[in-house]
Structure formats: C-alpha cells, structure tokens
C-alpha cells in the first residue's frame, strides 16, 4: 500500500498551561486507506502522547470523533486522507467550549437531550405478561430514518443558529424528540412539546439546512425540525380556532 507524508495542523489547548488555543504541526507518514483518525492515532502513538481527542469505534457508529477538518464538521473516522491535499487543519467541534485539545465540553447537548425525553413513553402502560407493543412495517418506516442519529453533534457545529444563540435546543435533540413523537407506541408528545414547541426550541431554527448537509448518517434533522414546526402550528390553530377538539 502506498504511503505519503501529510501535514496535520492540530489545535492544541492545555487548560493548565495555555491562555488560548494554538496550532501545532505534525508530519505523518500515511497509508492510502487511512482516515484522519488514523493519522491522529499515529501522532499519539509515535510522536506526542499528550495529544487528546475522543474516539471509540473507528466505524462511524459511536459518534465520538466529531471534529472540524478544514473547517467542516466531520467524523475523523470517516474523513479519508486521500480526499485532502495540502495541510489538513484539525480543530475541535465548533460552537462547543474546548476542554483540552480536540475534546469539547458537551454538557450542554447532553442536558438538552435529556430535556426532550428521547425514549418511549407508552400511551398505556401494560403488564409485561401482555406482550410487546406491536408495530407495522409502515409505522416503523415513519420514524426509522431519525433513529440513525448517533449523537455526534456535527449538526450543532454546523448550525449557525446554535453558534449565535446557544440556548437553542438544536437539531439532534429536537430530531430525536420528533422520532419518538412519530412512534405509534408513544404517548409522550405533550411532554416533549413543552420543550421543543418554544422559542428556544424549534422556533429558533431558520432552516439554514447546514445540519442535514453535514449529518454523517443522513438523518436530515432540518427536515425533522420543519415537520415539528408544521405540527406545532396545526396544534396552535386547533387550540385557538377549534378549542372543542381536545388533543
């Protein structure tokens, strides 16, 4: 397998020493089938063990290795070096505080995720002995695309609204709320609407569409958010024009 020398320019930040982040250059001998994560692993193993970043599965499933690669939110395990020329600039995900080097503070996203209750809230609890909650293939297909979200937060790094207005609940969390709202077994929509049908929820979205462009799993969060807007608007009209129709 052919090798080539690539130049990585990696953002470094040591909270115990640095006042501000800085860039550090590394030359890495790379194989043709390597991804950016391989190059970072090579640096850590051979050149600089202090380099800090998150990763786990190396196959675009765990969602840990999201970072900015030449200014674009990417999974480092899915960013093939052969698609890049010149110096490759690697930075932590935009719009999140930097904990250390390429590791960001993700507490904000995790708390927002918890707020939207991304789990099944059954309409009617039934005893275990009554069997599973059944679903047709059509009912499954209705929301299946949104189950592919791996919480990698690339959509938050791409979203200009989240960058400017951090209280925005954001693409992935609202999309996951939508995923459960669409589920025929679920009865938790009213609870989730209190979080997402608000000004810091879906109405902060102006449909820039960047989230869907960068999503590595083709979840299309932008589509989900527009569907939430339409459903919430229908709710409003129903409540105000036809109050006798109880939701």
């Amino acid at each position: 397998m052919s090798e080539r020398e690539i130049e990585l320019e990696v953002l470094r930040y040591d909270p115990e020493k640095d006042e501000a982040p800085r860039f550090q250059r590394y030359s890495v001998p790379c194989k043709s089938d390597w991804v950016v994560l391989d190059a970072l692993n090579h640096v850590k193993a051979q050149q600089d063990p202090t380099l800090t970043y998150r990763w786990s599965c190396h196959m675009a499933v765990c969602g840990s290795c999201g970072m900015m690669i030449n200014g674009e939110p990417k999974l480092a395990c899915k960013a093939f070096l052969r698609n890049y020329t010149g110096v490759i600039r690697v930075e932590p995900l935009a719009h999140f505080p930097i904990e250390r080097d390429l590791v960001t503070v993700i507490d904000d996203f995790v708390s927002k995720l918890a707020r939207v209750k991304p789990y099944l809230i059954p309409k009617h609890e039934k005893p275990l002995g009554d069997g599973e909650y059944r679903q047709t293939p059509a009912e499954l297909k209705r929301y299946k695309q949104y189950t592919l979200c791996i919480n990698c937060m690339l959509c938050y790094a791409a979203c200009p609204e989240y960058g400017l207005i951090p209280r925005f609940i954001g693409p992935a969390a609202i999309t996951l709320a939508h995923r459960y709202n669409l589920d025929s077994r679920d009865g938790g929509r009213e609870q989730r609407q209190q979080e997402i049908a608000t000004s810091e929820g879906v109405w902060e979205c102006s449909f820039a569409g960047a989230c869907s462009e960068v999503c590595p799993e083709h979840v299309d969060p932008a589509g989900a958010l527009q569907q939430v807007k339409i459903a919430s608007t229908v709710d409003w009209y129903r409540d105000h024009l036809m109050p006798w129709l109880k939701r």
Partner: protein
Amino acid sequence: MAEEMSRRPYHREVPKARWVLDHARYMRYMAREATCLFIGAYTLLLVVGIGRLAAGRAEYEAFLDALRSPLSIAFHLVALGFAVYHSVTWFNLTPKALPVQVGEEFLPDRVISGAHYAVWGLLSLAVLFLAGVF
C-alpha cells in the same frame, strides 16, 4: 480514587456578522434569506400602485408611465430574478417539510416539489388570464 481534574474550558466567540463568510453554505442560506427584501420591495411597489389608482386616473397613468422607465424595468428584472431564486430554493425544500407516506413508502421528493411547481404554474396562468393576457 481519580485525581480531581482542573477544568478551565476555553470558550470561542462566534463573530456576530462575519460568520456568514465562514462557509459557502452560510452564504447560500443568507442569499435565500436576502431575496425576501426584493419581494418586500416589489410588494410595496404594488401597494403604491393601488394608492395611485385610488387617487385618480391621471395619478395612475403617471404611475404606469414611471413603471416604463429603464430604472423601473431594471428593478423588475432584478426582483423577478430574486423571486424565482426564492421560489425555487423553497420549493426544492418542501419534500423535507411535507413528507407523504403512502402505505409503507414515502412519495419521492420530486413528486412533492413537482406538485408545488405545478400549482405555481397553474396559479400564474390564472393570474395572467385574469389580467387579460389570453
């Protein structure tokens, strides 16, 4: 027992206006948003026209004459260009907002956006018909 970690997260500011220039997709997005200024301006022009019509025949004739000036024609061409860009970009996004599931499968995107284009065409024909073009 793990050692207490010293935390001093570094916060990066998003530049208030310059962020638009950071990426081509942000510029495309703002271009789509900016088209509404021209649509708004054209709507104002129509409102002024109605006002001139209410003011009397002479005023309305003068308004129509003003519309024939090169400057006005240039504005109309630019506004038409932006209106088309506005409509096309939004119509192409409609399948995201309005997915239609028939049985198990979703209708293809081109059916959803195509229906919008068809209604757009029909309404435009109706307006031209009412205006006496045919």
